[in-house]
Each structure stands twice: as structure tokens, then as C-alpha cells.
């Protein structure tokens, strides 16, 4: 029994092996890029819009709201990275239900690559916001003794991110495979549906954790926090507040 899709090789030439993980993640990338390119060709700013534009707008505003609530900061800087991670993992987990297709996230290579992206993004966002010296100094907080522990924590949470997504997705497909040999009639369908739920939750958890790690490497400025929270109140509400006061 295979516990990784890396061994299913479609095409090879000398040392280059094109395996199932690569093919399916390229498929997901093409689906996302071509899909959103087609939709964003004809955007309208009026009240009449195509249903696909509506879908993309719902997705983007939902991700923005989640980032604003979870990080208590302006979502502008985080939206491209976190949104891409979320959509890629979500689509990868969902295509697992198509017969003959296996999720690219059920291979440790894909999840390790995604976790490495987060590992690199944390210092990049931190240095961009507060400068190299201030960012490096935050490793020695609260005292210099904590330096090795901070570094170990940084590494172990990256490994934990990768193993968590891999384990959840791989266990889903493996349990279905075992059940098919035990009770092939109806039960695997239920477990497959449960696997869909797990896939969506894991995509959410991965991107929220990436956001929390990035936000923890930054110093929150007080006025930004207030601005971000005030945006939740619409202008009419603010008028109402002023009238009451």
C-alpha cells in the first residue's frame, strides 16, 4: 500500500521524474490561475455582475475579514500570501474526491514546501515592517538565554505545520482505502464526506496558523489596531454613535 503519491511516476527522463504529486499540484495551479484570469477579464463595478465575479468577491472579502479579525491588523499586506495559501490548499484538498485524482497535499513534499514558504515569510514580513536589527533583537526577548529556544521553536513549528497537513490528508485517503476492503458498500462514502470537512478545516487552520506566525513576528502599532477595528463599524453606525453622544 502506498502512503505517498511521490512513487506514482508518469514520465521520467534521466534524473527528472514527473510524479503524481507534481502533476496534480500543477493541475491545481492551472485551475486557479486560468479560472481567476477568465473571471477577472470582464469585471464590472456596477450592481450587475457575473456570478463568477460574485464568487471571487465573496471569497476575497471573507479572507479579508478573517485576516482582520485574527491578526487585528490591516489585511492589505497579508492578503496575497495568506489568500494564496488558503485557496491552493483548499482546492488541493477538495480534488481528492474526484476518482483517480489524489490530493497533492497528501504527499509530505508538497506540505513541506508550503511550510517552508511560511518559514521564509515570517522574517521577510518582520524585516519589512520593523527593520533587520529590530527583528533580530526580538529573538533575544525576554533575555539572551531564550535565543536557542526561540530558534528551536521557529523550526519545530514549521515541521509541525507540514506534518499536520500531511498526516490529516494522508490518513483520510488511507482510511478510505482500508474501509474499501472491509465494508465497500456505503460506509466509505460517509468517510469520504467527513474527509471533505477535514480538508476544508485543515486549509483554514494552515492559513490561520501561518497568519498567526507572521503576525507574531511583528510589532503591533496601537493606532493601526484601532483603525482596523473601527472599519467594522459602518458610517451610518458612526453617525448614530455621534448623535447619541
Amino acid at each position, binding site marked *: 500500500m502506498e502512503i505517498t503519491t511521490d512513487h506514482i511516476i508518469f514520465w521520467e527522463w534521466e534524473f527528472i521524474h514527473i510524479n503524481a504529486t507534481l502533476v496534480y499540484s500543477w493541475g491545481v495551479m492551472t485551475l486557479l490561475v486560468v479560472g481567476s484570469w477568465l473571471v477577472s477579464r470582464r469585471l464590472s463595478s456596477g450592481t450587475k455582475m457575473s456570478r463568477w465575479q460574485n464568487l471571487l468577491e465573496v471569497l476575497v472579502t471573507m479572507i479579508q475579514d478573517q485576516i482582520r*479579525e485574527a491578526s487585528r491588523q490591516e489585511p492589505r499586506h497579508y492578503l496575497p500570501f495568506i489568500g494564496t495559501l488558503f485557496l491552493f490548499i483548499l482546492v488541493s484538498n477538495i480534488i481528492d474526491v474526484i476518482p483517480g485524482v489524489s490530493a497533492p497535499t497528501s504527499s509530505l513534499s508538497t506540505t513541506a514546501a508550503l511550510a517552508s514558504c511560511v518559514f521564509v515569510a515570517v522574517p521577510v514580513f518582520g524585516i519589512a515592517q520593523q527593520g533587520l536589527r529590530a527583528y533580530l533583537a526580538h529573538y533575544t526577548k525576554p533575555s539572551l538565554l531564550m535565543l536557542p529556544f526561540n530558534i528551536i521553536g521557529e523550526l519545530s513549528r514549521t515541521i509541525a505545520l507540514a506534518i499536520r497537513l500531511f498526516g490529516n490528508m494522508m490518513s483520510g485517503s488511507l482510511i478510505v482505502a482500508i474501509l474499501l476492503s472491509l465494508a465497500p458498500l456505503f460506509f466509505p462514502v460517509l468517510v469520504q464526506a467527513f474527509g471533505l470537512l477535514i480538508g476544508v478545516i485543515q486549509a483554514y487552520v494552515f492559513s490561520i*496558523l501561518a497568519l498567526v506566525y507572521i503576525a507574531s513576528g511583528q510589532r503591533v502599532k496601537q493606532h493601526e489596531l484601532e483603525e482596523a477595528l473601527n472599519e467594522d463599524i459602518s458610517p451610518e453606525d458612526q453617525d448614530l454613535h455621534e448623535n447619541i453622544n
Partner: protein
Amino acid sequence: MDAVSIIGMVSIIISGITIAVGSVGPALGEGRALSQALMAIAQQPDESATITRTLFVGLAMVESTAIYCFVISLILIFANPFWDYVIKLGGG
């Protein structure tokens, strides 16, 4: 008993013990977290969105310890490095 069967037997027994012990702790912890979250939602229904989000993230983090045990028991059964090594020694 030769080396191959000893390694096979020990791997299977240990993988069973790994998943058994490794699922008890997270199950207790998740049940406790869930009951606390339900209590918090009952007391403050307005905050249920925040509580639910934090609960999901926390449950996923707690569950990852169980997932580690699961991955290790799978490696012991399906991709055991010692087993491969001994078989290679015996065959070569």
C-alpha cells in the same frame, strides 16, 4: 526466531501501542476544550464566532500530536527503515 520476524513483530506491537497511547491524551484534551468552549458559548452567545474560530484552531493543534503518533505507526508498518535494511542484508 530470526532477525526479520523479530523486527516485524516488534514493529507491529509498537505501532499498536503508539496509536493507542497517542490517541488517549489528545482525546481527553479535546473533550475538555470542547466542553469549555460550549460553556463559554452558553454564557456569551454574542462571542460565538470568535470562540468557534479559536476552538477550531486549538483543536487542530491539539490533534496534531495524535497525527504524529499516527504517522509514526504508519511508518513502522508500511515504510519501516530497519525492516528494509535487514531484508537488504539478507538478500544481498
